[in-house]
């Protein structure tokens, strides 16, 4: 009896999940209406599946199957477990905001010493007090998963950095999951003013023993004219977690943005980035690394929209795939008709460490302007035997020799991270992955 009950509990369709929690989600009036509409949009589309071109390698209907019940707000025990999980991460000097199971955890966060001109609010506050229903709208970004996020979002951060303010320390949004077989939905906004400077770190981890949970996150970053922004996302979720994240960037004139994502955790993940140049003369580095083993499936899909002239973009993507894991990289660049002098380059390389590992690369360039410099390249291969032998002949055991070469391989994507602290953190996590590999 019990077994049957548990089963129906966890396999309730998304409509039941939403119906069961809609009245408890933050925001009334327009916000509640926005949720209803978003959920209706999700219901119409359903989970993305392989017949949609954009999702052909990552069929959520087959792989994710259903949406799990919403995670309950963290209690004392959840917070303690989350704290332990955070303590086990390599230390990084940052201003930290923690989201546990999709809810802001003030006791684990330290916002002290934040510069004047920086405003940090939770999404819950913004929806409940400010009635900012617009935070649940999806703008020009369609898609079922982002709509589902709008319907279900429980919390997140709404951060504004005023014009010309430079934040000294990185701002760290730390996601921690503590409840197995549940889903969490978070949604954050970062608005960087003109000529402002900020560094954002996002991390995803699980408390020890947290199984089979789902994360659906949306992050929206608006980079003001002449601003400088670094964004580093380190997804190291639990071994059987699902993480679907949408990152939306809008980049102002003469701004510089470096965005870097590394996926080393989760059994199933999709990181979809949507970046639009909104002002001329901007420069973007959009790099990423997938480190996968076991039966992991990780999909990075980046869409760069060169909507205005004179912008530069560089994409360097590296995937390391072991065992029966599957890595997907889809990189689409569109150069609009009037976006002359666009300089866009994308390079993706995959390293397969086993015969059963798979890497799918789909670079797509759509160029509608005639005076541009654009290029892309994709390679897939194994570790170079002659390099391995050289290292071994110098005394490095096989796994160590491989680790050194793998680190060099992903280093080509990691080196774009300008902050020493964040670059070192990224390397540390990559090394930990290599050590777990044994």
């Amino acid at each position, binding site marked *: 009896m019990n077994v049957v009950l548990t089963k129906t509990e966890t396999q309730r369709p998304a409509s039941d999940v939403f119906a069961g929690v809609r009245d408890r989600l933050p925001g009334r009036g327009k916000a509640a209406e926005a949720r209803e509409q978003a959920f209706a949009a999700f219901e119409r589309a359903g989970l993305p599946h392989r017949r949609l071109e954009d999702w052909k390698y990552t069929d959520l209907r087959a792989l994710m199957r259903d949406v799990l019940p919403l995670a309950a707000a963290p209690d004392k025990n959840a917070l303690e477990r989350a704290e332990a999980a955070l303590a086990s991460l390599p230390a990084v000097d940052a201003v930290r905001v923690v989201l546990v199971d999709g809810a802001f955890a003030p006791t684990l966060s330290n916002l002290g010493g934040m510069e004047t001109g920086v405003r940090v609010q939770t999404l819950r506050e913004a929806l409940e007090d400010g009635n900012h229903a617009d935070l649940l709208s999806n703008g020009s970004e369609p898609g079922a998963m982002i709509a589902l996020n709008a319907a279900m979002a429980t919390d997140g951060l709404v951060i504004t950095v005023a014009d010309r303010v430079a934040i000294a320390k990185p701002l760290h949004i730390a996601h921690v999951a503590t409840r197995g077989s549940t889903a969490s939905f978070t949604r954050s906004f970062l608005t960087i003013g003109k000529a402002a400077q900020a560094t954002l770190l996002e991390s995803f981890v699980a408390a020890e023993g947290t199984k089979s949970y789902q994360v659906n996150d949306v992050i929206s970053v608006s980079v003001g004219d002449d601003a400088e922004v670094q964004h580093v996302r380190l997804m190291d979720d639990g071994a059987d977690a699902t993480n679907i994240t949408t990152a939306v960037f809008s980049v102002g004139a003469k701004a510089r943005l470096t965005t870097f994502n590394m996926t080393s955790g989760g059994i199933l993940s999709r990181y979809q980035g949507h970046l639009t140049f909104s002002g001329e003369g901007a420069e973007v580095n959009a790099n990423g690394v997938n480190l996968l083993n076991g039966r992991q499936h990780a999909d990075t899909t980046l869409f760069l929209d060169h909507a205005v002239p004179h912008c530069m973009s560089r994409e360097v993507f590296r995937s390391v795939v072991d065992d029966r894991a599957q890595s997907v990289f889809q990189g689409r660049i569109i150069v609009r008709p009037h976006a002359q002098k666009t300089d866009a380059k994308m390079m993706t390389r995959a390293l397969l460490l086993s015969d059963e590992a798979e890497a799918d690369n789909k670079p797509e360039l759509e160029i509608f302007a005639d005076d541009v410099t654009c290029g892309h390249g994709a390679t897939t291969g194994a570790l*170079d*035997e*002659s*390099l391995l*032998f*050289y*290292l*071994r*002949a*110098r*005394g*490095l*055991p*096989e796994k*160590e*020799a491989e680790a*050194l*070469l793998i*680190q*060099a*391989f992903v*280093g*080509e994507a990691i080196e774009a991270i300008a902050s020493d602290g964040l670059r070192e953190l990224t390397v540390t996590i990559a090394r930990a992955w290599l050590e777990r590999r044994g």
Partner: protein
Amino acid sequence: MSLLEIKDLQVRVDDREILHGLSLTVNEGEIHAIMGPNGSGKSTLSHVIAGKPGYEVTGGEILFRGEDLLEMDPDERAAKGVFLAFQYPVEIPGVVTMNFLRTAYNAQRKARGESELMAPEFLKKVREVAKRLGIPQDMLKRGVNVGFSGGEKKRNEILQMALFEPSLCILDEMDSGLDIDALRIAADGVNALRSPGRAMVVITHYQRLLNYIIPDVVHVMSKGRVVKSGGKELALELEASGYAQFDEAALTAA
């Protein structure tokens, strides 16, 4: 006991036999030269001693201090004191030379059960040796051999040889691609490492190198065998008469 004892070694690559029963004995402190025309199997021999995959040993044995070398992984051989200075050292982008040297050095020490040398101590040691070999410090910050000239790559091999202090050094065509000045620097580096406890096998196509590194024994290799051994005067003889006579010898022996 000899340091290295190769007995009747037969080696195949892709089902083709390259070494047809090669024997060679090297004792501690000795310098051996192996000379032979291109394609005679010199590099194959050096690779098999170092443990490169892809070679099938179909007969014979290699003993190192009496132990079966062929049973060991390449890294075990390195830790035991076998060092091959490659004919063509590879470039390893993204692996900083200094970091590589430290990792390799400590891996060898660890395998021997010795304590690891900490960074500042090691740095000092590398700098000293590099200076002696005329290797600019900034080369140590670059990827292993990346953008190095032929001469720099060879000097980087000798740098490693000096750091790791192996008991058997195999130098495969150390002189190839070097002009006379580069050759002299490299040879001086090698000569500085001569010691009663260390043996060297100097593989070369030309007699020239042996003017700088004077061998105790010279072997002539042809078609996968040692066809003649003698003193250092054998090298001069070869210089005068060429390899053709030995090719004949190899043919008749076959």
